[in-house]
């Protein structure tokens, strides 16, 4: 099955079995191993990537369904020399222990901040018609699709809060 994706700004061609998930395509066919396979069932969020500006679980999506889509993975968010603001904040706030969930956490948080900017409410918003301030409770709810088995949650929330507060990403 021939599929063309734009991954981190580059046109990439793929010829894979239709069963290939977007996650497996990124990791095994395009050698972008930053996105992680945790549960492979959409429960842990380690595979989170940004497709056409939206965060999704790449393990629960077929690569062939993404022909001509734009994909951003952790490799496209920053480099060791040029970290994104969220990546720097995760380092500064010690937002991880083992680091396995971190690429998914950062991709998820990057797109989540855009959702907040667009005025999307959440389950914990008192008023679904109003624009929400990003409180600890709001961040925890909006990031609930990303599990961290080391339970670095307080520092992950601090890192996101830091970047949301400074309004630079």
């Amino acid at each position, binding site marked *: 099955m021939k599929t063309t994706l734009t991954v981190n700004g580059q046109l990439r061609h793929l010829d894979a079995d239709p069963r290939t998930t977007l996650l497996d395509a990124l990791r095994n066919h395009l050698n972008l191993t930053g996105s992680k396979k945790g549960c492979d069932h*959409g429960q842990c969020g380690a595979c989170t990537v940004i497709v056409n500006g939206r965060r999704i679980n790449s393990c629960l999506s077929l690569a062939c369904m993404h022909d001509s889509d734009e994909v951003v993975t952790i490799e496209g968010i920053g480099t060791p020399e040029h970290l994104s603001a969220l990546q720097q904040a995760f380092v500064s706030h010690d937002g991880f222990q083992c680091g396995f969930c971190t690429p998914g956490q950062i991709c998820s948080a990057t797109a989540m901040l855009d959702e907040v900017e667009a005025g999307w409410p959440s389950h914990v918003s008192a008023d*679904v018609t109003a624009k929400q301030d990003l409180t600890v409770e709001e961040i925890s709810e909006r990031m*609930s699709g990303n599990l961290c088995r080391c339970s670095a949650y307080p520092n992950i929330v601090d890192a996101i809060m830091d970047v949301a507060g400074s309004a630079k990403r």
Partner: protein
Amino acid sequence: MNPFEYTRAASRHEAATMAAGGATVIAGGTNLLDLMKLEVMTPERLVDISRLDMDDIETTADGGLRIGAMVRNSDLAAHEIVRSTYPVLSRALLAGASGQLRNKASTGGNLLQRTRCYYFYDTAMPCNKREPGSGCQAIGGATRLHAIFGASDHCIATHPSDMAVALQALDAKVEIENATGDIRTVELESFYRLPGNTPHIETELKPGDLITAVIIPPAKGSRQTYRKVRDRASYAFALVSVAGVIEMSDGKIAHASLAFGGVAHKPWRNAEIEQMLLGEAPSQDLFRRVADTLLRNAEAQGDNAFKIKLLHRTLCAVLTELTEG
């Protein structure tokens, strides 16, 4: 995952024709692909409808809303009219899944997601829903998630959707197009079936039927909420949930629609209790009688006996919240 042939449908007609020939429709895929990985579902052909032009939300001539089948759960929850006029729907959507899943899951697919019954998911177990006639291991087994209403000797599974519960309280209809291009609408109430002795037949959809939209009439009440009780604060299925739409007039209840999730094979509704509330002044005594009536015919399945009390309390809490002030 078993091998399959993949086709991206160029039109609704092509999708419906392929589905009539036995292909399985894929939209967001968040539930279907999970089930395919576990080989609970093993379609030989997939027809992808995700690029079809069915992702608009439009107001209808009578002041209601027509939601295209491919509208993503996150877009529906964030839609301005939904947030202001149908907040019960926004709330239900936001109570379900995670941000990532809501970005992918579609309106039609959410309606058609399968039960999360552990035995349905475990291919080593018999399951009348997965393999008709093989038996039900949930009966007498682990039943924390299972039904207290409308179950049968063949199946005690629950429908997992939050969105569908809110749509039920809003009197939604499902718009369906078949392979010959005929379009019909079915009330959500009759769209879903109880398990009976055919738990593998979950809806009124026939082979080749494609959900094209969900239509909701103008809201009959401005006081709306969705309360979901679950084992953790976020990203879990409902143990019980209540969708409520209430209108008050001169201190009396002028309209009440209530739907319940996590308790039956379909979003549960009870016309008798809605009737009991009409024209009455709100009181805890009234709410208790209403909840007693709702739960009069509830049947526990072992582990899930707690749901009877839990739903009673949750309903009273929702009615209190929606009739105050």
